[in-house]
Protein backbone atom coordinates (compact mmCIF):
# COMPACT_ATOMS: atom_id res chain seq x y z
CA UNK A 1 0.00 0.00 0.00
CA UNK A 2 1.14 3.56 -0.55
CA UNK A 3 2.57 5.23 2.53
CA UNK A 4 -0.10 6.64 4.78
CA UNK A 5 0.03 10.24 5.86
CA UNK A 6 1.74 10.94 9.16
CA UNK A 7 -1.39 11.58 11.22
CA UNK A 8 -4.87 11.27 9.85
CA UNK A 9 -7.65 12.92 11.79
CA UNK A 10 -10.36 10.69 13.19
CA UNK A 11 -13.35 10.87 10.91
CA UNK A 12 -15.10 7.59 11.61
CA UNK A 13 -18.34 9.19 12.82
CA UNK A 14 -18.55 11.42 9.78
CA UNK A 15 -17.88 8.49 7.48
CA UNK A 16 -20.71 6.51 9.03
CA UNK A 17 -23.06 9.49 8.92
CA UNK A 18 -22.18 10.24 5.31
CA UNK A 19 -22.73 6.61 4.37
CA UNK A 20 -26.23 6.97 5.82
CA UNK A 21 -26.83 9.99 3.58
CA UNK A 22 -25.71 12.90 5.77
CA UNK A 23 -24.55 15.54 3.30
CA UNK A 24 -23.09 17.80 6.01
CA UNK A 25 -20.91 14.97 7.29
CA UNK A 26 -19.66 14.38 3.75
CA UNK A 27 -18.89 18.08 3.44
CA UNK A 28 -16.74 17.84 6.55
CA UNK A 29 -14.94 14.86 5.05
CA UNK A 30 -14.41 16.85 1.88
CA UNK A 31 -12.83 19.74 3.77
CA UNK A 32 -10.62 17.35 5.69
CA UNK A 33 -9.29 15.40 2.71
CA UNK A 34 -9.61 17.57 -0.36
CA UNK A 35 -6.05 18.90 -0.33
CA UNK A 36 -4.46 15.46 -0.20
CA UNK A 37 -6.78 14.11 -2.89
CA UNK A 38 -6.33 17.17 -5.07
CA UNK A 39 -2.54 17.03 -4.68
CA UNK A 40 -2.32 13.44 -5.94
CA UNK A 41 -4.73 14.02 -8.80
CA UNK A 42 -3.04 17.29 -9.72
CA UNK A 43 0.32 15.56 -10.08
CA UNK A 44 -1.13 12.68 -12.09
CA UNK A 45 -2.91 15.18 -14.33
CA UNK A 46 0.42 16.76 -15.20
CA UNK A 47 0.00 19.75 -12.87
CA UNK A 48 -3.02 20.86 -14.85
CA UNK A 49 -5.43 22.63 -12.46
CA UNK A 50 -8.47 22.48 -14.72
CA UNK A 51 -8.23 18.72 -15.22
CA UNK A 52 -7.34 18.14 -11.59
CA UNK A 53 -10.47 20.02 -10.52
CA UNK A 54 -12.68 17.89 -12.77
CA UNK A 55 -11.06 14.68 -11.58
CA UNK A 56 -11.29 15.67 -7.93
CA UNK A 57 -14.98 16.43 -8.27
CA UNK A 58 -15.46 13.08 -9.97
CA UNK A 59 -13.54 11.32 -7.22
CA UNK A 60 -15.69 12.81 -4.45
CA UNK A 61 -18.92 12.00 -6.27
CA UNK A 62 -17.75 8.41 -6.70
CA UNK A 63 -16.76 8.28 -3.07
CA UNK A 64 -20.27 9.37 -2.11
CA UNK A 65 -21.73 6.64 -4.27
CA UNK A 66 -19.40 3.98 -2.91
CA UNK A 67 -19.39 4.98 0.74
CA UNK A 68 -21.86 2.24 1.58
CA UNK A 69 -19.24 -0.27 0.47
CA UNK A 70 -16.48 1.18 2.65
CA UNK A 71 -15.74 -1.47 5.29
CA UNK A 72 -13.33 0.50 7.49
CA UNK A 73 -10.56 -2.02 6.74
CA UNK A 74 -8.28 0.93 6.01
CA UNK A 75 -8.56 4.55 7.03
CA UNK A 76 -11.08 6.60 5.08
CA UNK A 77 -8.29 8.92 3.93
CA UNK A 78 -6.34 6.05 2.39
CA UNK A 79 -9.47 4.62 0.76
CA UNK A 80 -10.39 8.01 -0.68
CA UNK A 81 -6.84 8.64 -1.87
CA UNK A 82 -6.76 5.28 -3.65
CA UNK A 83 -10.15 5.91 -5.22
CA UNK A 84 -9.02 9.33 -6.48
CA UNK A 85 -5.83 7.87 -7.97
CA UNK A 86 -7.95 5.28 -9.76
CA UNK A 87 -10.15 8.02 -11.18
CA UNK A 88 -7.06 9.83 -12.48
CA UNK A 89 -5.61 6.61 -13.94
CA UNK A 90 -8.90 5.79 -15.64
CA UNK A 91 -8.76 9.23 -17.21
CA UNK A 92 -5.24 8.52 -18.47
CA UNK A 93 -6.33 5.15 -19.88
CA UNK A 94 -9.28 6.79 -21.58
CA UNK A 95 -6.94 9.20 -23.30
CA UNK A 96 -5.38 6.50 -25.43
CA UNK A 97 -2.15 4.66 -26.11
CA UNK A 98 1.15 4.71 -24.30
CA UNK A 99 3.64 6.80 -26.24
CA UNK A 100 6.51 5.83 -23.96
CA UNK A 101 6.49 2.18 -24.94
CA UNK A 102 6.72 3.18 -28.59
CA UNK A 103 9.68 5.49 -28.10
CA UNK A 104 13.07 4.25 -29.31
CA UNK A 105 15.88 3.91 -26.82
CA UNK A 106 18.07 6.09 -29.06
CA UNK A 107 15.74 9.02 -28.42
CA UNK A 108 16.65 8.99 -24.76
CA UNK A 109 19.67 10.72 -23.33
CA UNK A 110 22.21 8.84 -21.27
CA UNK A 111 21.42 8.48 -17.58
CA UNK A 112 22.78 11.40 -15.63
CA UNK A 113 23.34 13.59 -18.65
CA UNK A 114 21.29 16.42 -17.18
CA UNK A 115 21.64 16.91 -13.45
CA UNK A 116 18.36 17.57 -11.63
CA UNK A 117 19.91 19.43 -8.76
CA UNK A 118 19.84 22.61 -10.83
CA UNK A 119 16.13 22.35 -11.51
CA UNK A 120 13.81 24.49 -9.50
CA UNK A 121 10.67 22.92 -8.14
CA UNK A 122 8.42 24.73 -10.58
CA UNK A 123 10.62 23.70 -13.46
CA UNK A 124 10.51 20.08 -12.32
CA UNK A 125 6.73 20.16 -12.13
CA UNK A 126 6.51 21.67 -15.57
CA UNK A 127 8.82 18.97 -16.92
CA UNK A 128 6.76 16.20 -15.35
CA UNK A 129 3.68 17.78 -16.86
CA UNK A 130 5.22 17.45 -20.31
CA UNK A 131 5.70 13.69 -19.99
CA UNK A 132 3.36 11.37 -21.88
CA UNK A 133 0.41 10.43 -19.63
CA UNK A 134 1.32 6.84 -18.78
CA UNK A 135 4.99 7.59 -18.33
CA UNK A 136 3.99 10.42 -16.04
CA UNK A 137 1.65 8.10 -14.14
CA UNK A 138 4.44 5.58 -13.45
CA UNK A 139 6.90 8.28 -12.45
CA UNK A 140 4.44 10.13 -10.23
CA UNK A 141 3.21 6.97 -8.51
CA UNK A 142 6.70 5.58 -7.90
CA UNK A 143 8.98 8.55 -7.41
CA UNK A 144 6.54 10.99 -5.81
CA UNK A 145 3.71 9.00 -4.24
CA UNK A 146 6.00 6.19 -3.13
CA UNK A 147 4.12 3.24 -4.63
CA UNK A 148 5.88 -0.05 -5.30
CA UNK A 149 6.19 -1.42 -8.81
CA UNK A 150 3.86 -4.30 -7.88
CA UNK A 151 1.08 -1.86 -7.01
CA UNK A 152 1.66 0.23 -10.11
CA UNK A 153 1.59 -2.89 -12.24
CA UNK A 154 -1.78 -3.89 -10.83
CA UNK A 155 -3.33 -0.45 -11.25
CA UNK A 156 -2.00 0.13 -14.76
CA UNK A 157 -2.39 -3.46 -15.93
CA UNK A 158 1.27 -4.17 -16.64
CA UNK A 159 3.98 -6.53 -15.39
CA UNK A 160 6.41 -5.43 -12.70
CA UNK A 161 9.24 -5.48 -15.21
CA UNK A 162 7.27 -3.24 -17.55
CA UNK A 163 6.66 -0.79 -14.73
CA UNK A 164 10.40 -0.65 -14.01
CA UNK A 165 11.20 -0.17 -17.68
CA UNK A 166 8.57 2.56 -17.96
CA UNK A 167 10.05 4.33 -14.97
CA UNK A 168 13.55 4.20 -16.41
CA UNK A 169 12.32 5.64 -19.67
CA UNK A 170 10.18 8.24 -17.94
CA UNK A 171 13.19 9.43 -15.95
CA UNK A 172 15.18 9.59 -19.14
CA UNK A 173 12.48 11.62 -20.83
CA UNK A 174 12.34 13.92 -17.86
CA UNK A 175 16.04 14.55 -18.01
CA UNK A 176 15.68 15.29 -21.68
CA UNK A 177 12.85 17.76 -21.09
CA UNK A 178 14.78 19.44 -18.30
CA UNK A 179 17.89 19.53 -20.45
CA UNK A 180 16.05 21.22 -23.28
CA UNK A 181 14.43 23.78 -21.05
CA UNK A 182 17.65 24.61 -19.23
Amino acid at each position, binding site marked *: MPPAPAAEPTDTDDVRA*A*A*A*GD*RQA*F*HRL*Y*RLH*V*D*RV*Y*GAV*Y*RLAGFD*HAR*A*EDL*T*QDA*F*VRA*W*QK*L*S*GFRHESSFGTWLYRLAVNVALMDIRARGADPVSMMAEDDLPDR*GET*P*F*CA*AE*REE*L*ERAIGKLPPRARAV*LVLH*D*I*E*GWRHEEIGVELGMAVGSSKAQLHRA*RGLLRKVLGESA
Partner: protein
Amino acid sequence: MNEFEWLRQTRALREPVSPRRDLWTAIDASLDGAASTTPAPRRSTAQRVQGWVLAASFAGLSLFAGSLAVHLRDRPLATASASVTPDLERWRPSDPRLAGAAVEFDAASMELRQAMEQAPHSPALQRLLYRMQKQQSQLRQLEHQAG
Protein backbone atom coordinates in the same frame (compact mmCIF):
# COMPACT_ATOMS: atom_id res chain seq x y z
CA MET B 1 22.61 12.56 -9.55
CA ASN B 2 22.17 9.34 -7.66
CA GLU B 3 18.90 7.56 -6.95
CA PHE B 4 18.73 8.78 -3.37
CA GLU B 5 19.13 12.42 -4.32
CA TRP B 6 16.61 12.09 -7.11
CA LEU B 7 14.00 10.51 -4.84
CA ARG B 8 14.67 13.13 -2.19
CA GLN B 9 13.74 15.82 -4.68
CA THR B 10 10.73 14.08 -6.17
CA ARG B 11 9.29 12.98 -2.82
CA ALA B 12 9.37 16.63 -1.79
CA LEU B 13 6.63 17.17 -4.36
CA ARG B 14 4.35 14.79 -2.47
CA GLU B 15 2.36 17.21 -0.43
CA PRO B 16 -1.25 18.36 -0.22
CA VAL B 17 -2.30 20.99 -2.71
CA SER B 18 -5.32 23.25 -2.31
CA PRO B 19 -7.58 23.66 -5.30
CA ARG B 20 -7.68 27.15 -6.76
CA ARG B 21 -11.39 27.34 -6.02
CA ASP B 22 -13.86 25.64 -3.72
CA LEU B 23 -15.05 22.51 -5.48
CA TRP B 24 -17.75 21.68 -2.96
CA THR B 25 -20.55 23.61 -4.71
CA ALA B 26 -20.12 21.57 -7.88
CA ILE B 27 -19.71 18.33 -5.95
CA ASP B 28 -22.78 19.08 -3.84
CA ALA B 29 -24.83 19.69 -6.97
CA SER B 30 -23.61 16.43 -8.48
CA LEU B 31 -24.58 14.46 -5.39
CA ASP B 32 -28.25 15.14 -6.07
CA GLY B 33 -28.10 12.90 -9.08
CA ALA B 34 -25.77 10.41 -7.49
CA ALA B 35 -27.76 8.76 -4.75
CA SER B 36 -25.81 7.11 -2.00
CA THR B 37 -27.15 3.63 -1.42
CA THR B 38 -27.62 2.74 2.20
CA PRO B 39 -26.58 -0.86 2.63
CA ALA B 40 -28.94 -3.47 3.97
CA PRO B 41 -27.73 -5.23 7.09
CA ARG B 42 -25.30 -7.93 5.98
CA ARG B 43 -26.04 -11.52 6.80
CA SER B 44 -23.36 -14.12 7.09
CA THR B 45 -22.87 -16.58 4.24
CA ALA B 46 -24.13 -19.39 6.45
CA GLN B 47 -27.34 -17.49 7.19
CA ARG B 48 -27.89 -16.71 3.51
CA VAL B 49 -27.37 -20.34 2.51
CA GLN B 50 -29.63 -21.51 5.31
CA GLY B 51 -32.36 -19.15 4.16
CA TRP B 52 -32.15 -20.39 0.60
CA VAL B 53 -32.15 -24.03 1.68
CA LEU B 54 -35.23 -23.45 3.80
CA ALA B 55 -37.02 -21.62 1.01
CA ALA B 56 -36.15 -24.40 -1.44
CA SER B 57 -37.32 -27.08 0.97
CA PHE B 58 -40.64 -25.25 1.41
CA ALA B 59 -41.09 -25.13 -2.33
CA GLY B 60 -40.36 -28.87 -2.54
CA LEU B 61 -42.68 -29.59 0.33
CA SER B 62 -45.43 -27.58 -1.33
CA LEU B 63 -45.05 -29.50 -4.58
CA PHE B 64 -45.01 -32.85 -2.79
CA ALA B 65 -48.07 -32.04 -0.73
CA GLY B 66 -49.89 -30.80 -3.81
CA SER B 67 -49.20 -33.96 -5.75
CA LEU B 68 -50.23 -36.05 -2.78
CA ALA B 69 -53.50 -34.14 -2.55
CA VAL B 70 -54.20 -34.81 -6.22
CA HIS B 71 -53.38 -38.47 -5.68
CA LEU B 72 -55.80 -38.81 -2.78
CA ARG B 73 -58.52 -36.65 -4.27
CA ASP B 74 -60.73 -39.56 -5.31
CA ARG B 75 -60.49 -41.40 -2.00
CA PRO B 76 -63.62 -41.46 0.25
CA LEU B 77 -63.97 -38.37 2.37
CA ALA B 78 -62.89 -38.84 5.93
CA THR B 79 -63.19 -36.62 8.91
CA ALA B 80 -60.99 -33.61 8.77
CA SER B 81 -57.96 -33.71 10.89
CA ALA B 82 -57.30 -31.06 13.41
CA SER B 83 -53.61 -31.81 13.52
CA VAL B 84 -52.63 -28.86 11.34
CA THR B 85 -52.47 -26.22 13.93
CA PRO B 86 -54.01 -22.84 13.13
CA ASP B 87 -50.82 -21.30 14.43
CA LEU B 88 -48.97 -22.58 11.36
CA GLU B 89 -51.13 -20.55 9.03
CA ARG B 90 -51.13 -17.36 11.02
CA TRP B 91 -47.35 -16.96 11.10
CA ARG B 92 -46.30 -13.73 9.39
CA PRO B 93 -42.61 -12.88 9.72
CA SER B 94 -41.79 -9.21 10.06
CA ASP B 95 -38.50 -9.74 8.22
CA PRO B 96 -39.21 -9.26 4.50
CA ARG B 97 -36.47 -11.76 3.66
CA LEU B 98 -38.52 -14.51 5.27
CA ALA B 99 -41.85 -13.38 3.85
CA GLY B 100 -41.38 -15.43 0.67
CA ALA B 101 -40.73 -18.55 2.71
CA ALA B 102 -43.86 -17.82 4.76
CA VAL B 103 -45.98 -17.66 1.61
CA GLU B 104 -44.60 -21.03 0.51
CA PHE B 105 -45.31 -22.29 3.97
CA ASP B 106 -48.95 -21.18 3.78
CA ALA B 107 -49.41 -22.88 0.44
CA ALA B 108 -47.85 -26.09 1.74
CA SER B 109 -50.02 -25.94 4.82
CA MET B 110 -53.18 -25.60 2.76
CA GLU B 111 -52.23 -28.49 0.50
CA LEU B 112 -51.37 -30.61 3.50
CA ARG B 113 -54.68 -29.87 5.18
CA GLN B 114 -56.59 -30.90 2.07
CA ALA B 115 -54.58 -34.08 1.85
CA MET B 116 -55.21 -34.90 5.49
CA GLU B 117 -58.93 -34.50 4.98
CA GLN B 118 -58.62 -37.38 2.56
CA ALA B 119 -56.29 -39.50 4.67
CA PRO B 120 -56.19 -38.29 8.26
CA HIS B 121 -54.12 -41.25 9.50
CA SER B 122 -51.57 -41.37 6.72
CA PRO B 123 -48.05 -41.83 8.19
CA ALA B 124 -46.57 -39.93 5.21
CA LEU B 125 -48.76 -36.91 5.90
CA GLN B 126 -47.94 -37.09 9.58
CA ARG B 127 -44.24 -37.00 8.72
CA LEU B 128 -44.81 -34.05 6.43
CA LEU B 129 -46.67 -32.26 9.16
CA TYR B 130 -43.82 -32.90 11.57
CA ARG B 131 -41.23 -31.63 9.09
CA MET B 132 -43.29 -28.55 8.38
CA GLN B 133 -43.55 -27.70 12.06
CA LYS B 134 -39.81 -28.25 12.46
CA GLN B 135 -39.01 -26.00 9.52
CA GLN B 136 -41.33 -23.33 10.80
CA SER B 137 -39.55 -23.45 14.11
CA GLN B 138 -36.20 -23.00 12.34
CA LEU B 139 -37.54 -20.06 10.38
CA ARG B 140 -38.79 -18.44 13.54
CA GLN B 141 -35.37 -18.87 15.07
CA LEU B 142 -33.86 -17.18 12.04
CA GLU B 143 -36.34 -14.35 12.35
CA HIS B 144 -35.49 -14.00 16.00
CA GLN B 145 -31.75 -13.90 15.24
CA ALA B 146 -32.28 -11.28 12.52
CA GLY B 147 -34.02 -9.15 15.11
